[in-house]
């Protein structure tokens, strides 16, 4: 009997030596691997989608590329880890991805309950509805009794329940796993309306065969601040992601673009010089980044405005206006702390 117990204890001892854990040093892992792995959607036009040759493109992917440019000096060293709304946090927390750039709404429960670390907002969004024009619906308030497709595992599900309850209306929720399936169900008429963030609706409408026969209703029923997320417990990596986003916004504010970034290196504006690494920023070494990290971002990916216009702006099929995503000094909400 005694030997049995000691064998069990020995077994537990061996077990504790063998166990492994999610490493805290994400930056070291990324550098060793030579690739930044970003958790992105399974495909959402304009935001994250594989193009014809299978290369991932889009608004969120560009921020992923910016992260790679900052950390590895090469924007192409990324790997897209696709995830549904349901699996994204599990994939991030299980270490399958290093950072989540996946139009994810920042909420209290996600920040603290899941838990995650959020780093500011790269897209200010709100939940809306798309319906077929021939239904004759002009407002979300007329949707009483409608069947509504929703992507499951998102904040939209909760907003929808709240909105209809508050307005004393009934609806049939048709829960769907991915944006593509939701589109199919909506097109087939399984649901009268499809609801998701307004940016997602624009993306979905741009992929329909007859975009003109669909309208996005005027009501925006929620605040959806979308932003990147990382795992709890890695302050260095978290700060890097925060400042990657800030660098793109600051660059736009200072008028630094991918085209003029080389000339700007000889600018007289001290903040530009600090941003581009001509003058040293105190604390940069602690972040583990090279001197030209922000230069690399702007050179290879561009500033916030360039990323926006290239992927989702008015000249793209999505045709989204800057709106709340305009810079703070031009009537929007995008605002970066200073580089000082």
């Amino acid at each position, binding site marked *: 009997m005694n*030997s*049995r117990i000691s*064998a*069990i204890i*020995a*077994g*537990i001892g*061996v*077990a*504790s030596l*063998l*166990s*492994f*854990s*999610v490493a*805290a040093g994400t930056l070291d892992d990324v550098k060793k691997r030579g690739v930044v792995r970003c958790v992105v959607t399974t495909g959402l036009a304009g935001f994250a989608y594989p193009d014809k040759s299978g290369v991932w493109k889009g608004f969120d992917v560009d921020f992923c590329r910016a992260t790679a440019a900052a950390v590895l000096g090469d924007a192409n060293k990324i790997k897209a880890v696709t995830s549904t*709304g*349901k699996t994204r*946090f*599990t994939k991030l*927390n299980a270490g399958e991805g290093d950072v989540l750039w996946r139009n994810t709404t920042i909420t209290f*429960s*996600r920040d603290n*309950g*899941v*838990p995650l670390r959020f780093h500011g907002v790269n897209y200010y969004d709100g939940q809306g509805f798309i319906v077929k024009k021939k*239904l004759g619906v002009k407002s979300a308030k007329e*949707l*009483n*009794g*409608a*069947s509504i497709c929703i992507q*499951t*595992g*998102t904040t939209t*599900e*909760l907003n*929808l*329940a*709240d909105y*209809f*309850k508050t307005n004393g209306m009934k*609806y*049939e*929720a*048709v*829960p*769907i*796993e991915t944006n593509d399936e939701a589109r*199919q*169900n909506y097109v*087939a*008429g*399984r649901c*009268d309306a499809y609801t998701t963030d307004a940016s997602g609706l624009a993306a979905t409408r741009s992929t329909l065969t007859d975009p003109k026969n669909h309208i996005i209703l005027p009501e925006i029923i929620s605040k959806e601040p979308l932003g990147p997320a990382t*795992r*709890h*417990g890695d302050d260095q990596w978290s700060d890097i992601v925060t400042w990657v986003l800030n660098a793109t916004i600051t660059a736009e504010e200072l008028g630094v673009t991918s085209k003029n970034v080389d000339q700007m290196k000889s600018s007289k504006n001290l903040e530009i010089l600090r941003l581009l690494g001509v003058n040293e920023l105190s604390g940069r070494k602690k972040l583990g980044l090279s001197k030209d990290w922000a230069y690399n971002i702007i050179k290879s990916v561009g500033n916030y405005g360039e990323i926006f216009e290239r992927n989702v702006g008015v000249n793209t099929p999505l045709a989204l206006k800057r709106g709340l995503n305009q810079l703070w000094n031009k009537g929007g909400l995008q605002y970066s702390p200073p580089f000082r």
Partner: protein
Amino acid sequence: MDIVNKSQNKERSVVSRLWNNKDARSVIIQILTIALVFAVLSIILHNITVNLAAIGKDFSFDFLGHTAGYDITFSPFLDYTSSSTHFEAAIVGLLNTLLIAFCGIILATIIGFVFGIMRLSNNWLINKIAYCFVEFTRNVPVLLHILFIHGIVIQLPVPRQAVNFIDSFFLTNRGLFIPKPEWGPNSWIVGLCFIISIAIVFILRTWNKKQQEKTGVIYPIFWISICIMVLFTLGSFFLTGMPLTWSVPELRGFNFRGGVSVRPEFVALWLALSYYTASFIAEIVRSGILAVSRGQNEAAGALGLTKSRTLQLIVIPQAMRIIIPPLASQYLNLTKNSSLAIAIGYMDLVATIGGISLMQTGKEMETMIIVLLTYLVISLIISAFMNWYNRATALVER
């Protein structure tokens, strides 16, 4: 002699002496096995604790009492709203899983037996139809069947162009809408008469069996039973002044209101799971029937029993003993396959507690433990029932 033996024993080490002793060896192996099992378990547990701590997560089931916040449209048994708790959401999911499993098992059994018997038909066409059905169905993954049926169902017409049968039944891609019976005040009398008629039929059958044993006369008891039941029920229905109205579905706004709706997600999952499992059941039934020796058939023929009586009294009872154990596995498969429901948005256990609740609370470990244990319990219950049934129908050996 004694002294020589002792010195020899001392030379061999303690370990090899223990190893060569049959009883001691078995104890050693058992100890090693237990140690191994515990080592693996502790690796897993330790790993979970370390990693949960590393990402700042705790392990608790408190979230079950919190408000779920999301709606589940398909909740036929419970009144669920978005202010219900995650626990209630789990119960709704569980009931939906049980509903699909129950309906699926019944339909799969019916289709399976029909095709299994068709497979044995001497008619070439019937035989080959059954053969093709079985081979085409069971060789395609069940998820594809589910997506295929769902793809067909959502291409049905939208509510405004519903397929309309006599203005009461409507088939749309939002589901099948049928009139709902609404019973009036005296309707309990009709129900009572129906139960009485069943009791009478039961007594009649017992009497008939005794008569047959005594005299050998067989009365057309089946038709008599049907007549009694119909007469009693219909008679009482008309005498109480037809206490029944129908709530007919009616297109109002976006959807039909009133009546009963059978949702397309439910239909797609139900049909796909049923016919997929049925293809396996058909083969089980065929093998069961073929396993009954020809002699039994011939003996029954020699006794002058008709073909249907032979099947009913000789072949099927013996085949059932072979059919039931593999049939139980198919029932378990169907129940577990129902977890694919999420693919088409049917709100089962995996979609509610293991899906949306998981997502909203971030409690992957806890919700998955709940889902796993629930499936385990459901499966064990089905298993226990089928084992009991197997024993009940087993051959009583003398």
